[in-house]
């Protein structure tokens, strides 16, 4: 029997790793990869709370599925933006994208 | 409990008694028995795989008016054995710039992704790996590993042709996955379950789904051929353009694993076609004698495999753009139309009895086909008119 704290700590660690990746990676695609880690951390929590709460109430699983949809949408739009910027500026390094300064 | 009517459970219980008699923990004994069962199942699959090498070579020879293997054993039946020995003792070269770990992992994952499928395939009424309640999605999930192995092989070989072949193949696989998954929803709607065992049992008690959804079976077969990367959809190995596709750099047993995976995959898809639409192991006396069910299952799977081979050796390869257009502009809309019609008609006729339900569903399929054909006809007429006008203008 696993107490819920195990899942919560694991997901906190995964979330932190993802957050670190988002903050430090220079490549925009790597930033998106790290966001996926954070979304997965959220999903672990949602499913764990479904399992350790009232399993008849499916809210946790439904939310997890919605997170899947959001993750897919985020990847689709995010990668398309990266690709579009790459074609115009020939770079995927986030630091070099300083369009707003112009 | 009798061995002939329920072999797996009989063996399971006698083994359980033996192991716990030796003083083993119950859970541990269960795991050991599971592993033994899995090994037997996988060995069975691999024996079929080895026989398939002979079937494939013999049948292609007959299609092309040749004799095929006929030296070793009766009708060349033992030909696969030297084939395997040859693969094992061949030198295995690795390109110098390859990404070694990924390169070696790819063929293992490729065969593994096919073997995973055998966990859920029901071989007979009570002979199956596991009755998973999300088996249909599990089937799609194993396909994800197959796609992954192709990308890994193509990328890690560090070869232009391999990479191009891998991307062509992956584009085809992911495109044709959509109509396949949509067609999978049809048995799910009818039975209200995603378990292969429930689907087969339902067909045993009522009717084969081939009768209520012939179009679904056809769409499944077409998208299965594309998933397998077999002709007419074998773009990954257009010899004149990209040599041999994603496994161009592989040699020896690593190539053998890709090859074995491809064969077994085709057979397994034949089996899944039979499970989903042709009653799986269902046949005369199959419920009383499970081993007869295994025979029926293998016969039906072999028939599906033969259909795939028939198409492969008859139809020439089509161009990649045509292939993707065929999927997105024809197969996907048709499969969604079929899904919508099935979802609309099924609840209406569900309680009406089989004598109304089956013809009703069949007619709804016919309706979808008819509308599709009409739409295609009007479109091609328009295209032809445009082309003729252009030609007439050019003449003047």
């Amino acid at each position, binding site marked *: *029997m*696993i107490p*819920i*704290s195990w899942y919560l700590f*694991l997901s*906190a*660690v*995964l979330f932190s*790793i*993802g957050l*670190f990746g988002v*903050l*430090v990676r*220079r490549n925009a*695609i*790597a930033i998106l*990869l*790290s966001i*996926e*880690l954070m979304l*997965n951390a959220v999903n672990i929590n949602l499913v764990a709370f479904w*399992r*350790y*709460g009232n399993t*008849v109430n*499916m809210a946790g*699983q*439904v939310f*997890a*599925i*919605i997170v899947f949809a*959001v993750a*897919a*949408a985020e*990847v*689709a*739009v995010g*990668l*398309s*933006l990266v*690709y*579009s910027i*790459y074609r*115009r500026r*020939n770079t*995927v390094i986030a*630091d070099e994208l300083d369009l707003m300064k112009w | 409990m009798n061995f002939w009517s329920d072999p797996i459970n009989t063996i399971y219980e006698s083994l359980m008694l033996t192991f716990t008699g030796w003083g083993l923990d119950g859970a541990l004994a269960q795991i050991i028995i599971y592993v033994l069962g899995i090994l037997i199942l996988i060995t069975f699959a691999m024996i079929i795989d080895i026989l398939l090498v002979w079937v494939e070579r013999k049948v292609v020879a007959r299609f092309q008016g040749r004799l095929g293997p006929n030296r070793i054993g009766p009708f060349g039946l033992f030909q696969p054995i030297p084939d395997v020995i040859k693969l094992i003792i061949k030198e295995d070269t690795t390109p110098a710039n390859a990404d070694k770990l990924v390169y070696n992992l790819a063929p293992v994952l490729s065969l593994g992704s096919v073997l995973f499928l055998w966990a859920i395939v029901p071989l007979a009424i009570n002979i199956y790996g596991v009755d998973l*309640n*999300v088996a249909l*999605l599990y089937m*799609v999930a194993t396909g*994800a590993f197959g796609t*992954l192995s192709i*990308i*890994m092989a193509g*990328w890690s070989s560090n070869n232009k042709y391999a*990479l191009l072949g891998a*991307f062509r193949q*992956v584009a085809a696989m992911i495109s044709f996955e959509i109509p396949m998954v949509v067609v999978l929803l049809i048995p799910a709607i009818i039975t209200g379950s*995603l378990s292969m065992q429930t689907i087969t049992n339902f067909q045993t008690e009522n009717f084969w789904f081939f009768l209520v959804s012939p179009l679904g079976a056809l769409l499944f077969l077409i998208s299965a051929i594309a998933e397998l990367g077999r002709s007419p959809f074998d773009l990954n190995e257009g010899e004149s353009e990209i040599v041999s596709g994603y496994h161009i750099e592989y040699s020896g047993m690593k190539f053998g694993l890709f090859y074995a995976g491809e064969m077994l995959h085709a057979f397994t898809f034949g089996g899944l076609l039979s499970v989903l639409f042709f009653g799986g192991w269902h046949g005369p006396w199959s419920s009383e004698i499970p081993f007869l069910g295994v025979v029926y299952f293998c016969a039906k799977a072999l028939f599906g495999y033969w259909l795939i081979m028939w198409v492969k050796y008859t139809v020439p390869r089509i161009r990649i753009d045509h292939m993707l257009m065929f999927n997105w502009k024809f197969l996907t809309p048709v499969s969604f139309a079929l899904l919508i019609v099935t979802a609309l008609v099924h609840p209406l006729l569900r309680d009406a009895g089989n004598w109304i339900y089956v013809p009703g569903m069949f007619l709804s399929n016919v309706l979808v086909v008819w509308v599709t054909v009409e739409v295609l006809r009007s479109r091609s007429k328009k295209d032809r008119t445009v082309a003729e006008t252009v030609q007439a203008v050019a003449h003047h």
Partner: protein
Amino acid sequence: MDSTQLLFLFSSFLIVSSAVNVVSSKNLIHAALWLISTLFGVAILFAILEAGFLAVVQVVVYIGAIAIMFIFAVMLTRRENLESGSQVNKSWPFALLLVVVIAAAIGSLMLKWDGMNTLPVQIAEGYDSVASLGAALISPDAFVLPFEVASVLLLAALLGSVYVAMNKK
């Protein structure tokens, strides 16, 4: 230490070590492959949590689609991805500090909560989570609105991303 706990520890080791590799890999294809291994670990966790449907969906959606998308995108923009320079930006020590502080804050918040030792509830015999998930998704007094909105979200993502990716100049 029972078998479920061992399995949990194994999969959490897989998740965390692969996640560290995702963040630190120089080669983006390797990072994407490590992401796949992380996601597979999460799928194992879902199976342990008896959310079988989600475990399979995790593989279908994340490994079968999202990870493949990443690899495609890396291939499309590959002039940059094998660069030899530093993969992290200059302010990484601050980021590390920030992350440690946030992790500590989350940890201390969790330690204050008194439900940390909750054990899983018994799931009734013959309970089909796929069917009840379906019922929850489509019944009007549950989640039918998110269900339909999800399709609008996916539509918006499809149109937006295809438009952005195809837009020439």
